[in-house]
């Protein structure tokens, strides 16, 4: 029997606003526990929430980038449940009137791009963080729990896809696309390892062609794109195997065990959770009037899909356009400014994504801002194109620029890397090499063209790489008599 997968992804994005969702405490990762707290985010008696305008603008931007409609009015609800790291024992969240509804995101796996629907994006507050400790260090034998409320009240956007994702690879691609959109908007640190983006997957399977949906299982605890893909694939396989061996899938929440590579039942009483949502009486309904929405829309940066399209139109091939579009902001800025200085788009893209990125990754030039400007890189490319320096010498010039030795022209001169284009000097060097290698000259004369490369190499070595290889080539051929 052939099976069809029905996958929906819920993504939680922590916003990188200065202050928390409903109070003035700092949003800051990694501080001493319980230092960014106040009556409101500790749930002290009498404290009240006041919504963070910047967070609302961030979720509006996310919604727009995901092609959602921003609702003209929206309401916060209380989601009631008791948990030690939830200070009020209710979470201020949204229920039936979220801020963003009905969007979509293009997702590419291999050569196939599909559009995945987005049901909603809503605003809520994060909980505190529990750390279970015991002598053995095992959760099961935890003897006490430490609570850190620094995260309590950090603005959180929950983005819920429609159940339109069809494979584990597509689930991963969806999550990656979503992350790049959020990172592009600059509204979140978007770091998986710090938990500023978290994924849950709803997975079910059904026989191909069947209308009715299979029983859905929620899978949690995936902390990388790879583990998301693995967990979803595991869950698909598990469900199919279960059904094919006459079992039934139970509606439940399962925990992904990264080490064992399996999902495990969390043994929660499913259906027993009644959050008793009701409209948050401490807050008034939000109104997102058209003027506000348009003002936010005007601040939206170029999104990855649009940028790739622009790069391709300017002459880059699709592969390079995608690589460059996925590069970080400083890298792209360098590319854009290099091109703006008149450099060829392909040369600029090659240098930026190749040699420059490799050096910056190594940490060269990490101490100062703007060590390499677009003007400098454009100059470097021009020096190569004009034959003033060779491509290999250009890498040394780049090192010099990154060490703060000056502009490419200056570095080429001071490091003595200018290409020798003076024919007489080259002739002199060629003659010396030919005199030292009479056999090779003979071979060349008798038609063995492959020794040409060897001879050119010898001349280049003799000139410490400064000779123009094209000229060297011509001179050797002339001497060989053809």
């Amino acid at each position, binding site marked *: 029997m052939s099976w069809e997968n029905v996958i929906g992804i819920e993504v939680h994005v922590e916003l990188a606003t200065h202050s928390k969702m409903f109070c003035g405490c700092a949003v800051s990762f990694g501080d001493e526990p319980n230092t960014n707290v106040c*009556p409101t985010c*500790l*749930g*002290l*008696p*009498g*404290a*009240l*929430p*006041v*919504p963070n305008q910047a967070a609302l603008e961030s979720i509006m931007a996310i919604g727009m980038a995901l092609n959602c409609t921003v609702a003209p009015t929206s309401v916060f609800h*209380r989601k*009631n449940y*008791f948990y*030690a790291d939830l*200070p*009020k*024992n*209710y979470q201020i969240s949204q229920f039936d009137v979220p801020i963003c509804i009905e969007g979509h995101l293009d997702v590419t796996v291999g050569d196939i791009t599909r559009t995945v629907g987005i049901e909603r994006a809503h605003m809520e507050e994060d909980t505190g963080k529990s750390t279970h400790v015991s002598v053995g260090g095992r959760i099961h034998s935890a003897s006490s*729990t430490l*609570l850190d409320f620094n995260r309590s009240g950090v603005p959180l956007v929950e983005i819920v896809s429609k159940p339109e994702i069809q494979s584990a690879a597509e689930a991963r691609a969806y999550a990656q696309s979503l992350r790049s959109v959020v990172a592009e908007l600059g509204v979140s640190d978007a770091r998986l390892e710090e938990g500023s983006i978290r994924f849950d997957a709803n997975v079910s399977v059904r026989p191909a062609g069947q209308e009715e949906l299979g029983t859905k299982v929620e899978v949690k605890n995936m902390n990388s794109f790879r583990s998301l893909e693995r967990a979803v694939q595991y869950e698909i396989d598990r469900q199919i195997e279960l059904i094919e061996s006459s079992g039934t899938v139970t509606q439940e929440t399962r925990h992904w065990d990264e080490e064992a590579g399996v999902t495990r039942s969390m043994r929660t009483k499913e259906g027993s959770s*009644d959050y*008793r*949502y*009701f409209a948050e*009486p*401490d*807050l*008034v309904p939000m109104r997102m009037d058209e003027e506000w929405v348009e003002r936010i829309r005007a601040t939206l940066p170029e999104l990855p899909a649009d940028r790739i399209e622009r790069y391709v139109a300017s002459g880059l091939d699709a592969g390079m356009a995608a690589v460059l579009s996925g590069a970080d902001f400083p890298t792209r800025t360098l590319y854009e400014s290099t091109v703006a200085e008149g450099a060829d788009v392909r040369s600029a893209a090659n240098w930026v994504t190749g040699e420059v990125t490799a050096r910056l990754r190594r940490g060269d030039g990490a101490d100062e801002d703007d060590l390499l400007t677009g003007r400098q890189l454009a100059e470097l490319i021009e020096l190569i194109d004009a034959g003033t320096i060779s491509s290999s010498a250009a890498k040394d010039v780049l090192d010099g620029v990154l060490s703060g030795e000056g502009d490419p022209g200056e570095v080429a001169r001071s490091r003595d890397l200018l290409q020798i284009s003076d024919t007489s000097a080259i002739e002199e060097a060629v003659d010396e090499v030919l005199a030292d290698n009479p056999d090779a000259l003979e071979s060349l004369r008798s038609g063995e063209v492959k020794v040409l490369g060897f001879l050119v190499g010898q001349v280049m070595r003799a000139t410490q790489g400064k000779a123009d290889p094209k000229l060297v080539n011509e001179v050797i051929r002339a001497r060989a008599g053809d």
Partner: protein
Amino acid sequence: MEDFTIAIAGARLRDGSLRAVDLLAGVLKIASDTEAQIHAYLNIDHAGAREAAERADNELAAGVDRGPLHGIPIALKDNMMTRGLETTAASQILAGYVPPYDATVVSRLREGGAVIVGKTNLDEFAMGSSTENSAYGPTYNPWDINRIPGGSSGGSAAAVATGSALVGLGSDTGGSIRQPASLTGVVGMKPTYGTVSRYGLIAFASSLDQIGPLSRTVEDSALTLGAIWGHDPLDATSYRGDYPDLFSQIGAGVDGLKVGVVKELGGEGYEPDVDASVSAMVEQLSASGAEVVEVSLPTFDIALSAYYLIAPAECSANLARFDGIRYGLRVEGETAEEMMSRTRASGFGPEVIRRILLGTYALSAGYYDAFYGQAQRVRSAIRDDFARAYQQVDVLVSPTSPTVAFEAGERTDDPLAMYLSDICTIPCNLSGDPAISVPIGLDSRGLPIGFQVMAPALGEPMMYRVASAVEDLAGFQDRPSLEMVAT
């Protein structure tokens, strides 16, 4: 001690014939004479009050005038956060809790130079109508110490009635300022929802709670409200527009005003003395030139039912934070869940538990629409009823309470009878409109009767105008006999 009002004391503090420390000493003398019988206070802040009074004297002598409450002894219901001063909401679950911050009203009082005498008793978390639901014992009525003072702001009402404070703050969710004011013969006022910040008020039902003054006179009420109201950026439900001048209409009389008598609030279930006294006042208003009409607001009959779904629903969430984890009482257990549940079971009193259960039930899946949803629809209908009424009349009037002060223990075993105490006051909480209770006389047993004046949202100037006229017409000067109360 002289029978001071804020206005009189304020004038004498400024002309140098009275010192704030002496005024405070007089108030504390009354407290020490009466507290054993009345128990208006949970906690008197002798040191803090003395310091504030001394500062007020120094400032006033130096010509620094912080406004009408400068140097005035004020009592605060113990559900308002006072930095460094124990605040319990009369609950075991907050026994010994010392807040790290001031409620906005408290900050405003401090900035205004008021002298905070202490924290007054209340029904636990403001849930009740007699101040008998306090975990620290009931408050008694200075007019008859076998009777209750009403509630839940019974402590502040009793303090103002006995003179152990010149003025008090209460909170009113379903009548908790106006009903005890009525039962103790003082003026009690609930402002328009959103005009007094709730920041730092321990929430009972957020969409209904509102802080307001209990005072000797209508003028004192307006002076106190003026000092505490105004937009607060810390309360997202705080009103942002213009605040009217509270004194702009006081003294203008009622000639030419249209006064609506609420048909549904009177008759069966109302004590004859209450009905008679209220009718007599309506007659007097008419004789003073007001056009009196009977107005029917049919939704008032179901307001109580709606209230007892909405308020418990909100309280079930508001009180969820009292879990023993971060502050307050903790009763240990094997697991965090067990600890929370033991803490709550032993920290909350029976009425609080009853309302949390009611509210939890009303919000539950499958019941939400029939209970909470329906109650919200009733609430809209009540607002519509009010809006229609205010197209015809300037103010609405009624008794504040169907009865005078009842005997201690009389209704404690019958929650529904207790809930009926608030039948006249609840509609204005559901609509968010302002209302005031003014004492107009005593019944045949010598117990005070209150008259309620209701006005549309932000209609405080009109409300105070009519209340002031009622006060003048009633000429109510009686005070409880302190000799009888004093030990």
